[in-house]
């Protein structure tokens, strides 16, 4: 009898164990299914925030791509003593096609673009009063990234025919599956510039005047000013710079004084930031700090040759410091400092250069703009007779030193790097080897 009962119990146990099959339906906890990601307008907005976090990736606006560009453009004003071979290659102007930082810039760039393409694809669920803002920010991100990719991976605008030189692939739709169409060929340099300008122009029109630390009208116009300057379209550059300065001023932005306050050792944006990548102790990264600061890796030291460029009394000299016998630049000493991507000062410099070249005074006289920059750093204002393109470019170089512009300025100004010509293929990133492996429609850059 007992055994019968036992047998029945065991049978019951077995049968109940068999009903475990529903236990195979498990669900992730930190992630959700893609199809559930865009149910409400709020979902779309948080996806946009997610796109900013990818924009701030280490190899993108987190700073490494700018440090790499600075190393490519510099010869003896700095010395490099780091062990990241990816950057050693930059300093030596000998980039390898498997450089993982180069591949990372490409991947991070298109990841951010895919993020915003997803957002743009779901604008229909966004509340009407937020639609423009969401669309504007998305296009700001896409246009900015396309511009930064094309000027690193393609020939300079002024090098031959941008209408036939290969740029980078233009991606305007979100990825839902990987198929043959995922192998997108490179668009021409001109086509990428056109797309970037279209995105940013649209962004400028749709973005709000004031938008916290997210992109606003001023940021979009500033990025446009950079693009127009890079392609030598000075009239549009001056106009865009003026718009950006005007929006920024209306938002209460101004040049920090003293100069060092533009690079604070604290959290958050300064009143000079037109657009900055947000870094906090729990998210984001500032790779300018990683490589330039003695408190970081301290891989990049500043040589006397650079310091000799400054006039005596220049407040910008105050930012250089000696540690253990080497000189470092103090713009990036706070590990959780924001990446000051576009400072208001840059727009005065763009406008001054553009106006000076054209002989115009769109927004302001070039002399006034230059002296705004000079007076802030305790230098005597230039007289009109002292104003020259060289003086403007020198001011630009010193004001924006080590902030990631050196390579792109050298190219547009057709200045050689040592014996290397400004349009040498060595100064263009290679298309990453991994991309060539998986995309038969890509072509490698000359020289690689």
């Amino acid at each position, binding site marked *: 009898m007992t055994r019968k009962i036992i047998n029945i119990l065991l049978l019951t146990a077995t049968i109940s164990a068999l009903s475990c099959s529903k*236990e*195979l339906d498990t669900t992730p906890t930190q992630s959700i*299914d893609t199809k559930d990601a865009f149910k409400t307008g709020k979902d779309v907005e948080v*996806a946009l*925030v997610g796109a900013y*976090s990818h924009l701030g990736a280490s190899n993108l606006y987190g700073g490494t791509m700018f440090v790499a560009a600075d190393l490519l453009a510099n010869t003896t004003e700095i010395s490099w003593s780091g062990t990241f071979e990816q950057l050693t290659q930059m300093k030596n102007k000998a980039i390898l096609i498997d450089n993982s930082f180069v591949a990372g810039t490409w991947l991070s760039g298109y990841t951010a673009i895919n993020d915003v393409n997803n957002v743009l694809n779901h604008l229909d669920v966004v509340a009407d009063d937020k639609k423009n803002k969401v669309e504007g920010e998305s296009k700001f991100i896409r246009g900015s990234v396309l511009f930064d990719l094309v000027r690193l991976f393609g020939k300079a605008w002024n090098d031959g025919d941008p209408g036939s030189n290969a740029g980078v692939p233009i991606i305007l739709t979100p990825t839902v599956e990987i198929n043959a169409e995922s192998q997108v060929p490179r668009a021409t340099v001109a086509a990428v510039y056109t797309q970037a300008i279209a995105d940013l122009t649209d962004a400028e029109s749709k973005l709000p005047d004031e938008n916290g630390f997210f992109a606003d009208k001023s940021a979009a116009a500033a990025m446009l000013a950079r693009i127009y300057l890079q392609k030598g379209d000075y009239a549009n550059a001056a106009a865009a710079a003026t718009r950006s300065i005007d929006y920024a001023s209306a938002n209460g932005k101004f040049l920090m004084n003293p100069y060092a306050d533009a690079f604070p050792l604290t959290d958050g944006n300064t009143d000079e930031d037109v657009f900055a990548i947000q870094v906090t102790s729990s998210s984001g990264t500032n790779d300018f700090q990683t490589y330039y600061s003695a408190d970081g890796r301290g891989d990049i030291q500043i040589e006397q040759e650079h310091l000799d460029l400054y006039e005596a009394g220049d407040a910008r000299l105050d930012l250089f410091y000696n540690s253990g016998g080497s000189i470092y630049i103090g713009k990036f000493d706070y590990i959780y400092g924001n990446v000051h991507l576009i400072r208001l000062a840059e727009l005065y410099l763009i406008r001054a250069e553009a106006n000076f070249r054209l002989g115009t005074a769109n927004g302001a006289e070039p002399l006034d703009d230059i002296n705004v920059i000079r007076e802030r750093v305790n230098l005597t204002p230039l007289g009109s007779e002292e104003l020259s393109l060289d003086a403007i470019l020198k001011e630009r170089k010193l004001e924006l030193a080590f902030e990631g512009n050196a390579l792109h300025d050298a190219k547009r100004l057709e200045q050689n790097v040592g014996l290397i010509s400004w349009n040498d293929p060595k100064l263009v990133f290679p298309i990453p080897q991994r*991309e060539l492996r998986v995309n038969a429609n890509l072509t490698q850059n000359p020289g690689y």
Partner: protein
Amino acid sequence: MRKTIALLLAVIFTATAAFAQGRVVTGKITDAKDGSAVAGATVKARNGKAITSTSADGKFSLKVEDNVKELVITYVGYNDFIVAITGNELSIAISQNSQSLSEVVVVGYGTKIKKDVTGSIAKVGAKELTNTPVTSFESAIQGRASGVLVQQQNGKLGQGINIRVRGASSVSAGNEPLYVVDGIPVITASLSSNGSPTNPLSDININDIESIEILKDASAAAIYGSRASNGVVLITTKKGKNGTSKIDIGYFTGSQKPTGKREFLNATQFVDYFSRAAVGAAHQDFLAGYYDTEEDAIADWMSYTESRFTRYSAGNEDWKTAKVNTDWQEQGFQKAPISQYDVSLSGGNDKTKFFASGQYLDQDGIIVRNSYKRYNGRLNVDHKVKDWLSVGMNMSFARSQNNRVSNDNAFSTPIQIVALSPITPIIDPRTGLPSGALDLATGNPNTNFPVYYNPLLSVDNSSYATLVNRMLGNVYANVNLAKGLVFRSEFGVDQLNQTEEAYYGSVTARNTGVPNGSGFFSSDQLLNINTNNFVQYAKTFKDVHVIDVVGGMSFQKQTSTSSLAEGEEFPSDAYKKLASAASKVDATSSASEFSFLSYFLRANYKFNNKYLLALSGRYDGSSRFGANNRYGFFPAASVGWILSEEKFLENVKWLNFLKVKGSYGLTGNGEIANFASRGLYTGDGAYGGQAGQRPTQIPNPDLKWETTKGFDVGFEASFFNNRLGIEVDYYERKTQDLLLDVEVPGTSGFSSQFRNIGNLNNKGLEFTVNTTNINTKNFRWTSSINFSANKNKITNLDGQVLGGDVNKAKEGEALGVFFTREFAGADPANGDALYYLNTTKSDGTLDRTTTNDYNAAQDVVVGSPVPDFFYGFSNTFSYKGIDLDVLLQGVQGNEVFNGGGQFMSASGSNGFDNQTLDQLAAWDKPGDITMVPEARMFYANGTNNSSRYISDGSYLRVKAVTLAYNLPASVLKKVKIERARFYVRAQNLFTITNYKGWDPEVNADYSASNITQGVDFYSAPQLKTIVFGFSLGL
């Protein structure tokens, strides 16, 4: 009348019964070697039914039928012995055989007699394992089993160990075998937070293990279905035995050292060498047009370099006289004692058997700041409740604390100390503190002195402890439903709770990047539950048909939750808990789970003791797979023929046993991320304090099992009175539908996707030869050789080349081959690093001209981390009470890539890292022929990945040596001790290798993966251990 008949029948029956009772045979069984009593041996009447086992004193008493003329004595680890019954008091001496065919081997959901096994199973017993002075048991099976390649990543304690059973079968999914302890699959995944994997298997007390069986071929493993592709390791813990209760006490203590060291420049060589590098760089700068004259360039570079020498000399000019000459490598190592204490109790009677044990292991690592302590407890109980019901449990508890160091790729890992300059003093004379601790100018730690962060600062000013509490156990019930029919239900739990806590003091700021201390606390809680419910049926028909069937179901579910909190800004280094952190920089928690539901069936049939057939199948479902392909079926079949039972071999006296066997079956692999088939958005896109989500995975609802088709043929034979035993296996394993992490175009916004693409093959040969070379009364010498050759080849990857660094997965090659530029030494004309072009010419041959343009040269296969073959050779000698066991182990035909070479063997052209001695051969002047390019500071002359950093990784090791003395019985009687054994034991005593690094058995922990193997990156060498110990039996 009826009563009469009944009475008559009763009388007849009783008489028959009385007649059948026959006679009583008694006797004593002893070990032929030392005369000690053998307890628990089975004594069976040959051609009869009577059976018993010997008691603790080796004695037995058996009633046998009158027609029984002989007894069969069987005992695990001993030869079967047939003895004629002569007289009633027998004295029987049986001899040991390390590979006895009567041995019982554990198979999935049951056991089998070895001679009936048709699959391929390697077994390592307690004898080989006990008291091995290592942290985890896998180290103890290295070299002991054919077809099982064991590689320890490095010499950090409790570190990950890779095991490949018959080669790697997967590119992107798991390649480690399934581990099953007493029937329950256990947790094996590393839970480490610092990129240096730990090994949850090290929670198991080696001395608790009775045997380890490794199921190698498809027929043996297929009963574990979807997780059997990489083999299955079955661990069986010790049980109590019938007889007097026993107490065993063990202790050993000793010390450990690194197995090898590298040679670096001394102070004078360092200064000379980097001065040369400065001149080399100046020359390049001049050529690039940065300077007007070469003299200017040299003057500038020398001034820079000399200022660096002064900095690294702690701000003085001692470097000019080599007054300070620090051997930093020595500073990274420490004295490393090891001790282990064991106690176990066991015993039992017909109803209840028990085994209880406790262990304490206290081990220091060979590298500074590394130590490991572990407590283990175990209680295994089996109880027969009724004739038809027995129940039992196997419960163990472990608590370990591993004081760990950073992963190999961190400045703070002790071995990276070799990068520091020999001109740098250990104590900075300016401060009286360790170099790097204090910059008097700022009051903070130095930011650029010494050349890199000094790992010694971490020794006293940081801590990183991994604390594990583990409960592993199961309960079972066996119900005899009918004759031969048993139902077994098992329920197992593996609960692993781990915390990791770290504090990095303010003096480590240069390493952590934060000035006032930082720390984190992480917690992982894993619960793995498993139930197996199955019936076993065994029956013999007409004496010649033996069938044995097992069928049932299994369900496993593992859930895990983890959390992490991180803080910075501590009031002082006296405060080390996050409670004191002013800034809480990170807090996260997560959870995950997976489940498997399986049904299995296995049937064995044996005819006439000669012909063997086994069929098995498993139907597996897993939560990991796409909705379209959730279940898979994994069948296998095998046959065997015991030729030695055939008439035509009956008279071949020198042949004791011969079996040929063959098997074929399918196994699966589902070791991928828990949600790999889904399209995912993840909520980790926070930006500037605002929450964000972002796409993280593209869906693949068709994702399914990776399947391996395995084929195995082999034979087992023993000759010359079982003094020579041979086992040979040839196998082929073809894996299809590889679970591949496929690269996709980056323009999609993703870098890879899991897809079922590709095929790879393993084929190989393995053999084991066991010999009894000498067997006299006092002296015995036995040997065992195992040899395994495996050829791994990827046949289809859809044209892709996968792998992040030098190791690649590539069609036509073994998984993980080193695929990079082929280095051609220094250009005799100018000292440039040269590479062979290796481009394909129009005639199809490779262009062997050299170039200094790295981009122009093509990658070629320059080596493989996978050995062509590996082997073990053990010899055991015993003379009276002394025994000596020597195990040699080796691998042959693999290469090692020194990933640290780009810094330490870099022609001084990639930073001020101290250089290995061989860099002195750098190109110096036109015409020099050398493999070391010119020294050019920061010019990365030949430092990019290439065959420059490949070397032969073959080695032969004296893996384990034990010399022991067993006290003779006469002495033991006086001191009233059953057994006493004193021994000295060495592990990794001696290594023969061409490898110039620390140790050729290496796999840089931070990068180790299926593809990336055999890379040395400042990896701690293996441990050379010598211990003295004793074990006492009371």
